[in-house]
């Protein structure tokens, strides 16, 4: 076996462990589903009327729920950050990590397992959330190819945010801190993007931020794909953001992993 085969094998083993953890302790998965579903209900049933009216041309003639659901999918991806950070942090605080470190296990396998597990969890949650959305009246106009693209973007964004969350989980001092540090990703960034309302409707300063932060091109891509609108270059921008966040998160996480485990008494 060469090093790459072993690395893949070790990462797969760690992924299996992470998925088993999710099944044994499903609370974190439930929260990943519950938060976007509650937001869906809140924005569709309670806030959706006036927002839908105000939306006007921005919805391209679609109903507000069709505008909203791509944003809710984004929110689902963001909601996966909390569990990812918590799980990584919990692992580093326990004795198990020391056992792994005294074995000839591929160095990055543990984090790779966490990131892979987070992506699988998020995709599962996204499927459930999409089904709920269909029940409450979401009527996508996506082709099969569009759906594959949606799946790909959700997976890519989830992958990127999972590396970032892993880093946040590693540098956090407590479990609560691990979760807390992901809250801006989970809530602030989605609200300050075109997740719920178009960026164009925001005050100047916020609008500038909203138009230039990663969540907006991602949600615009999903929205275009799901409502059958022309996709344009926004998807390229979205994928570029994913790549940048993934790379930054990966490097940060690797450095934090080395530092975090290096000098514990």
């Amino acid at each position, binding site marked *: *076996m060469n090093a790459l085969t*072993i690395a893949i*094998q*070790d990462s797969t*083993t760690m992924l299996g*462990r992470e998925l*088993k*953890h999710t099944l*044994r*302790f499903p609370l974190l998965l439930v929260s990943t589903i519950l938060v976007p579903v509650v937001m869906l209900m809140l924005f569709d049933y309670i806030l959706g009327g006036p927002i839908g009216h105000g939306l006007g041309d921005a919805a391209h003639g679609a109903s507000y729920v069709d505008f909203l659901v791509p944003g809710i999918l984004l929110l689902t991806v963001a909601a996966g950050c909390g569990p990812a950070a918590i799980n990584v942090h919990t692992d580093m605080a*326990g*004795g*198990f990590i*020391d*056992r*792994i*470190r*005294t*074995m*000839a*296990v591929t160095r990055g396998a543990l984090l790779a397992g966490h990131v892979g597990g987070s992506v699988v969890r998020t995709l599962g949650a996204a499927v459930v959330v999409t089904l709920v959305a269909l029940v409450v009246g979401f009527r996508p106009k996506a082709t099969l190819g569009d759906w594959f693209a949606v799946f790909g973007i959700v997976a890519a964004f989830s992958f990127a945010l999972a590396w970032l969350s892993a880093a946040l989980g590693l540098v956090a001092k407590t479990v609560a801190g691990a979760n807390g540090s992901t809250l801006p990703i989970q809530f602030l960034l989605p609200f300050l993007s075109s997740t719920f309302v178009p960026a164009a409707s925001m005050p100047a300063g916020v609008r500038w931020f909203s138009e230039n932060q990663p969540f907006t091109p991602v949600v615009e891509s999903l929205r275009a794909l799901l409502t059958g609108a022309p996709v344009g270059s926004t998807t390229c921008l979205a994928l570029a953001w994913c790549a940048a966040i993934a790379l930054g998160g990966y490097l940060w996480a690797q450095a934090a992993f080395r530092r975090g*485990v*290096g*000098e*514990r*008494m």
Partner: protein
Amino acid sequence: MNAMTSDATRNAVSVSGLRKTYGKKVVLDGVDLDIHEGEVFALLGPNGAGKTTIVRILSTLIPADGGTARVMGHDVRREAAAVRKVIGVTGQFSAVDNLLTGEENLLLIGRLLHLPATELRARTAQLLQLFDLVELTKRTPATYSGGEKRRLDIAMTLMGRPKLIFLDEPTTGLDPRSRQTMWQVIRDLAADGVTILLTTQYLEEADQLADRIALLDRGHVVAEGTPDDLKGRLPGAHIRLRFADAASLDEAARELRDGTRDDQDLVLRVPNDGGIRSLRDVLARLRDDVAVEDLSIHTPDLDDVFFALTGNTSKEQTT
């Protein structure tokens, strides 16, 4: 050590001049150790002596600040990967995965060791049997007792049949029966020819299990040898007599010339094996008007070893 080069007693571990500091605190201050292949070696010392730090350095978890350490011929710093292939470590804190069952824990370790599928199953079943964990196979460690958890921990350590095992305080926190079980586990491993480095705070444990003991105090090895060697260096058992006044102490000291007096505490320590006959003999030599406030029989324990070997003569003075 003069047996370093002989093949029959090759060193599983050789440590020289090992140093480690955390901030300003010197944890290891030039430790030298040689552990021969196939022996059980105990690092004996109180909390904070540096036992765990030695284990963590030897098991590649932390780097030393100075000195060299080789495990099975490999430098722990430069050839960490090679070291990790031959060692097994059971740390002081549980290293089991609490969300996986006992069986899944073993399977996980086996997969990370890249055992072939058939061997993976066979070894898992064998270890569950060996460590009396069969009934716990399908349960998660959250429901285990302390002893059961420790047994699973050691079973996981043995999954890859390591040649050298580090056991950091393997019986701390266990009830007496679990401690006995753990001792038997260690004896069985030793009988199989596995080299074992164990740390302990208990003299009795080191005495029961170890071929050789190194006594560690504040980052120094203060004594090293077989259990009998060390016991030969212990202060003898004695009777401790405390008197009501200086006059009584003076009188008793005249009668019991082999005693050591402590004027400040009005105490006289008389060497004695603690037997009834010799005790009666000592008492018979005291006159009736000597006012003895208190009598206690003192047999040597780990504290005595420390106080004897670290140059601190009286533990009463320090407590």
